[in-house]
C-alpha cells in the first residue's frame, strides 16, 4: 500500500517496463464506464497507468455551427442537448447571457422559479453522477435508488413544462409555463423525502461503505493549483478544497437572497481533492440545494405572468458578452458575438466538463486501471457537453 500512496502523490510516475515498453490500451469509445463515447488512450505497465490521452469529439453535433443559423429562442432547445442531465441549468445560462446583452430585467417571480428548477435539476444531475459513480465502483443498487429519487424530480418537471429530460423551459426573458397549483407542495414533499433518504440510505450504503471509501480515498488527488490551472470547476474544483462557487462569487439570478453555504472537500477520508472528496461535495451540495429549494418555494411571488417579459422577437444587440453560470458540473460559459442581426454571429460554449476532463491525465498517472474508472466517474463528465 505504501508504494501506491507514493504514486498517488505524484512522486513516482511508473517508468516503462524493464524492456522499455508500455502497452497501449484503448478504453472506449465503446466502454461501459466512459459515460458516453469517450476514448481514453491508456499507456499501461501491467495494471498501472503511465499516461492517459483522452480523445473526444465522437458526440460532436455542431452546436456552435447550428447557432449561426438559429435565433436565440431556437438555440434554447439546442442548449438542452449539450448537458442533457442538467438541461435547466444550460437553458438558464444561455437565457441569462442573452438577457444581459439585451438589458432585459425578468420579473422576480421568474427569477425565483428559475432558481427552483435549476436547483431541482442540480439535484437530479448529482443523483445520476453519484449513481453512476457507484456503478463504476461496482455498487449496483445505489444507482437505482438515485434514479428513483430523480424520477420524482422528473415528474415535477413533466408536470411543469411537459418534458422529462430536454425541457426548453427557461426562455430568454421568462419561462415557458407557470407552475401548477400543487407544484410547490410537490417540491416540498420531495425535499422532505430526499433529505431523509440521503442520510439513511445513500450515505450508509455508498458514501461510508468501507470498500467504496478505500476505492476512492487518496485516489486521483487534484491539488488546488492543478484545478485552477486546468480550469476545473464545480464539484471538481471544490473537491480540491477551493471555496469558490459562481452562485455566490459571481452571483446571477437571485442566488444572493438565500442562506446556504459552499461545500468544499476536506479530505475527510484521505487527501483533500481525492475522488471521495469530489463525491462528498456532490452529496453535500444536494443538501444545500434542498435548503435553497425550501427557501425559494417559501419566498417566491405567486402572482404575475411568467411570459410577461418574453420579447416577441429576440434580437441581440451588436456586441459580445461572456457570461458564466454554475451548472452541476461547474462553470458553463457562453461567449456570444452578435452584430445585431436575428442570429448571433458566434456562440462559443465553455463547457465545464470539457475542462474537468482535461485534468484526467495529470491526476491519473500512476493509478491503476480501476482507479482511472473511479477518477473518470468522480469528474462527472457528460460527453454531450464536452463534444457539443
Amino acid at each position, binding site marked *: 500500500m505504501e508504494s501506491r500512496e507514493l504514486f498517488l502523490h505524484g512522486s513516482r510516475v511508473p517508468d516503462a517496463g524493464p524492456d522499455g515498453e508500455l502497452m497501449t490500451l484503448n478504453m472506449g469509445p465503446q466502454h461501459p464506464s466512459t459515460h458516453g463515447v469517450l476514448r481514453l488512450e491508456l499507456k499501461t505497465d501491467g495494471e498501472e497507468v503511465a499516461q492517459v490521452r483522452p480523445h*473526444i*469529439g465522437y458526440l*460532436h453535433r*455542431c452546436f*456552435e*455551427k447550428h447557432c*449561426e443559423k438559429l435565433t436565440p429562442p431556437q438555440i434554447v432547445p439546442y442548449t438542452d442537448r449539450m448537458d442533457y442531465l442538467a438541461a435547466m441549468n444550460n437553458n438558464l445560462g444561455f437565457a441569462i447571457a442573452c438577457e*444581459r*446583452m439585451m438589458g432585459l430585467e425578468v420579473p422576480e417571480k421568474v427569477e425565483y422559479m428559475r432558481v427552483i428548477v435549476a436547483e431541482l435539476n442540480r439535484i437530479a444531475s448529482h443523483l445520476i453522477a453519484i449513481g453512476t459513480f457507484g456503478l463504476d465502483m461496482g455498487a449496483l443498487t445505489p444507482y437505482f435508488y438515485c434514479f428513483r429519487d430523480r424520477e420524482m424530480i422528473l415528474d415535477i418537471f413533466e408536470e411543469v413544462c411537459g418534458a422529462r429530460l430536454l425541457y426548453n423551459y427557461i426562455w430568454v426573458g421568462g419561462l415557458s409555463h407557470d407552475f401548477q397549483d400543487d407544484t410547490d407542495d410537490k417540491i416540498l414533499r420531495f425535499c422532505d423525502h430526499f433529505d431523509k433518504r440521503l442520510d439513511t440510505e445513500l450515505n450508509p450504503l455508498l458514501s461510508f461503505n468501507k470498500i467504496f471509501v478505500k476505492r476512492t480515498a487518496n485516489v486521483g488527488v487534484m491539488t488546488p493549483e492543478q484545478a*485552477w*490551472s*486546468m*480550469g476545473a470547476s464545480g464539484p471538481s474544483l471544490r473537491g480540491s478544497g477551493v471555496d*469558490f462557487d459562481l452562485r455566490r*462569487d459571481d452571483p446571477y439570478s437571485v442566488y444572493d437572497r438565500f442562506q446556504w453555504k459552499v461545500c468544499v472537500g476536506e479530505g475527510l477520508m484521505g487527501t483533500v481533492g481525492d475522488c471521495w472528496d469530489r463525491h462528498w461535495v456532490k452529496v453535500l451540495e444536494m443538501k444545500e440545494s434542498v435548503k435553497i429549494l425550501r427557501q425559494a418555494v417559501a419566498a417566491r411571488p405567486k402572482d404575475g405572468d411568467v411570459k410577461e417579459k418574453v420579447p416577441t422577437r429576440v434580437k441581440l444587440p*451588436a*456586441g*459580445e*458578452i*461572456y*457570461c*458564466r453560470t454554475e451548472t452541476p458540473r461547474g*462553470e458553463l*460559459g457562453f*461567449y456570444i*458575438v*452578435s*452584430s445585431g442581426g436575428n442570429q448571433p*454571429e*458566434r456562440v*462559443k460554449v*465553455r463547457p465545464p466538463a*470539457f*475542462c474537468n476532463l*482535461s485534468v484526467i491525465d495529470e491526476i491519473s498517472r500512476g493509478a491503476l486501471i480501476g482507479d482511472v474508472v473511479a477518477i473518470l466517474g468522480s469528474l462527472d463528465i457528460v460527453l454531450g457537453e464536452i*463534444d*457539443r
Partner: protein
Amino acid sequence: MDFAALVQHLRAALPDAVLEEHPEAFSPWILVRREALGELALLLRDDPALDFNQLMCLSGAHAPSTDADRLWNVLHLFSVRHGHKLALKVVLDAADPACPSVAGVWATADWHEREAYDMVGITYTGHPDLRRILCPDDWQGHPLRKDYVAPATYNGMPLD
C-alpha cells in the same frame, strides 16, 4: 481593480501591448498586439496586483461580417483573489492565422486552443500538441469559418 485601472496598469507595464480598450462593451475587452500576447499573459498571471489565475474561456471566432476577413482569439480571464475580469482579444488576418499560444501560462488553454484551431483554424505557435479535437484528424477545412463549405463526402461516405 476596475477595468480602467487594469488597462492603466497594463499600459504602464507593457507600453505597446494594448492597442485598444473597450470599456463600454458587455464584457470589457482590450485589443492586444499579437506579438505581445505571450508576454502579457505571463504578466497577467504572475503580477500579484493582477493575479489572473483562471482562464475562464478561450474562444476562436471568425469576426462578424462587419469586420472584414479576420479571426479573433479571445481570452476571458478572472482573478479569484481580486475578483476582477478582463477580456483580451487578438485580431488575426485570416490569411496569416498564427497566434502565440498561452497553453504554457494557463493549462486550460491547451484544449481550448486545439478547439479554436479545429473550428476556425487559428494556428497557435508554441502549443505543445496542436491537433484537431472535435473533428476527425483528417477533416478538411475549419467549420466555423464564414467561408466554410460543408464537404459532400468524408472518406467516401456521403454527408447529407
